[in-house]
């Protein structure tokens, strides 16, 4: 028997640790990544020619980022590494990829998907205006391009990233006008028992908030976003929100970074026909995995934030575990027992994840309150009112049916940024549980391709 072919998708923390583990077992993996360089989003590397040191780029995580990058640099020659390559479909046990307009298909004995996550968004009136960005985008602008997204920036939403990005902006010399958190401060206290599972991370988070206070940044809890005020030509001009005491306030700004924690990129898992289950805690459908990252499909493994948002440390562990699972299943490892420590570590990370979900709550109730003229689908400018109309008048009660009739989720982001909020709006308008609304099916190509590319593969 020849060497089994193992294909990894994604060269972030999960993908790199996965490749490293496979190499240690004597297998040369293929590593597909959309980025120009390894590192993924959280440990995204700045372009060649940029000179900021690790401590400045990654703060308290500098050593972890550096170790991941150096590990990859050391191993790169031994990996079949394909950067700037999009994995766009899985069909008939082949992974379809495209690079520079040239498409091909890879056979695999094991496929390990580490596609990462994007920001999870809840619309707000006016979020279509230029100058509204995701929190992740705000961080990428700084980390990878040494830019602020505007002259006067407001960060709004909830989650650890809200405070991390705000403090990174302050440190880099950007003007942060305010940090507006939709979660109540009390929620954080109630979540404390679970958050204590990772005391070190909790302490770092508190230090971030303290640094923002020291810098004099205006911070509000328990706010409700009302409107991003702007003009079609000039974009964002201010943000209006309701304070915890019910007062409407307005803060002038020319840019907003927005996000409510993260959502896994699950399209490839879906195309691989992996089973999903409803996660009541975070109100979303997630692929099912076992403790090592095995999906319901034999030979398909899922690791990192692309299946369960545990952050970078959890992703590194998940990448290692998924590699071991593939090795065990291919009869190349006897190490099942030695994985106990890693599994224990992941259980601790998952407890912390639950704590974060409790502390920084997905604001589901906002969906019901969105005015009819609020745009839900940024891609095609489709409003909450139009989505409600197809539910009311045409009886759509399921996510894909409502998508077909309203086109919410049919635009070029393929529902990444409107899908979760749209499901909440449907559940509210149709008076059905969110679980029953279902989820948008993953569709190939998972990102837009040129027609010429598709023709090449036939």
């Amino acid at each position, binding site marked *: 028997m020849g060497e089994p072919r193992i294909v990894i998708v994604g060269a972030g923390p999960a993908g790199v640790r996965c490749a490293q583990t496979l190499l240690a077992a004597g297998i040369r993996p293929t590593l597909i990544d*959309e980025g*120009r360089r390894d590192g993924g*989003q959280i440990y995204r590397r*700045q*372009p*060649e*020619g*940029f*000179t*900021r040191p690790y401590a400045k780029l990654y703060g308290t995580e500098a050593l972890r980022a550096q170790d991941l990058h150096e590990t990859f640099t050391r191993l790169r020659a031994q990996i079949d590494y394909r950067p700037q390559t999009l994995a766009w479909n899985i069909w008939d046990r082949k992974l379809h990829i495209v690079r520079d307009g040239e498409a091909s298909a890879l056979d695999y004995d094991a496929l390990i998907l580490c596609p990462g996550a*994007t*920001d999870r968004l809840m619309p707000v009136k006016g979020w*279509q*205006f*230029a*100058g*509204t*960005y*995701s929190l*992740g*985008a705000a961080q*990428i*602008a*700084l980390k*990878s*391009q*040494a*830019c*602020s*997204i*505007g*002259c006067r920036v407001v960060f709004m939403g909830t989650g650890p990233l809200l405070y991390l990005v705000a403090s990174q902006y302050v440190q*880099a*010399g*950007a003007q942060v006008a305010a940090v507006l958190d939709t979660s109540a401060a009390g929620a954080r206290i109630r979540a404390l028992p679970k958050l204590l599972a990772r005391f070190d991370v909790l302490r770092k988070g508190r230090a971030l908030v303290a640094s923002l206070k020291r810098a004099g940044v205006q911070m509000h809890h328990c706010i409700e976003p009302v409107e991003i005020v*702007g003009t*079609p*030509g*000039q*974009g964002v001009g201010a943000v209006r929100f309701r304070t915890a005491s019910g007062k409407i306030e307005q803060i002038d700004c*020319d*840019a907003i970074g927005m996000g409510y924690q993260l959502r896994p*990129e699950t399209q490839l898992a879906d195309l691989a026909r992996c089973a999903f289950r409803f996660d009541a805690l975070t109100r979303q459908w997630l692929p099912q995995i076992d403790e090592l990252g095995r999906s319901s499909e034999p030979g398909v493994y899922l690791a990192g934030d692309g299946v369960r948002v545990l952050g970078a440390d959890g992703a590194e562990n998940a990448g290692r575990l998924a590699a071991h699972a593939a090795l065990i299943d291919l009869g190349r490892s006897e190490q099942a027992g030695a994985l106990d420590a890693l599994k224990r570590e992941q259980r601790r990370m998952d407890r912390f994840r639950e704590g974060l979900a409790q502390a920084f709550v997905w604001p589901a109730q906002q969906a019901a309150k969105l005015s009819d003229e609020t*745009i839900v689908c*940024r*891609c*095609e*400018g*489709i409003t909450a009112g139009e989505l409600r109309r197809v539910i009311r008048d045409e009886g759509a009660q399921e996510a894909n049916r409502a998508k077909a009739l309203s086109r919410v989720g049919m635009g*070029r*982001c393929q529902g*990444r*940024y409107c899908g979760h909020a749209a499901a909440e709006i449907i559940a509210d308008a149709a008076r059905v549980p969110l679980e029953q609304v279902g989820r948008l099916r993953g569709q190939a190509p998972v*990102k*837009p391709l*040129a027609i010429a590319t598709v023709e090449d593969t036939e």
Partner: protein
Amino acid sequence: MNGRFVRLGETARAKVSIVIDGQSVEALEGDTLLTAMLCSMRHVRQSEFGVEKRAGFCLMGACQDCWVWTDEGERLRACTTVVEAGMSLVTTQPEAQWANLAL
């Protein structure tokens, strides 16, 4: 033209000249097209469905909000394309398209 993005460092890089909608604009080596454009203007395209201009949203190649075109008609995703000297870009879709009913 006033910009949207603000450079906070890494400004010692070599300068690169590109053309946007017929106007010459200075960028820096290692800039993405999105950075290069937004450091000197407020948007990168007109929404085809709404009245507003757009300036990108996710910066990680997921939202497809930052599509721009070369003057030869090739579509580029500005946040994942690296700027090259002499590039000539347009912020309106060059091929024939349906009317934007919102405008």
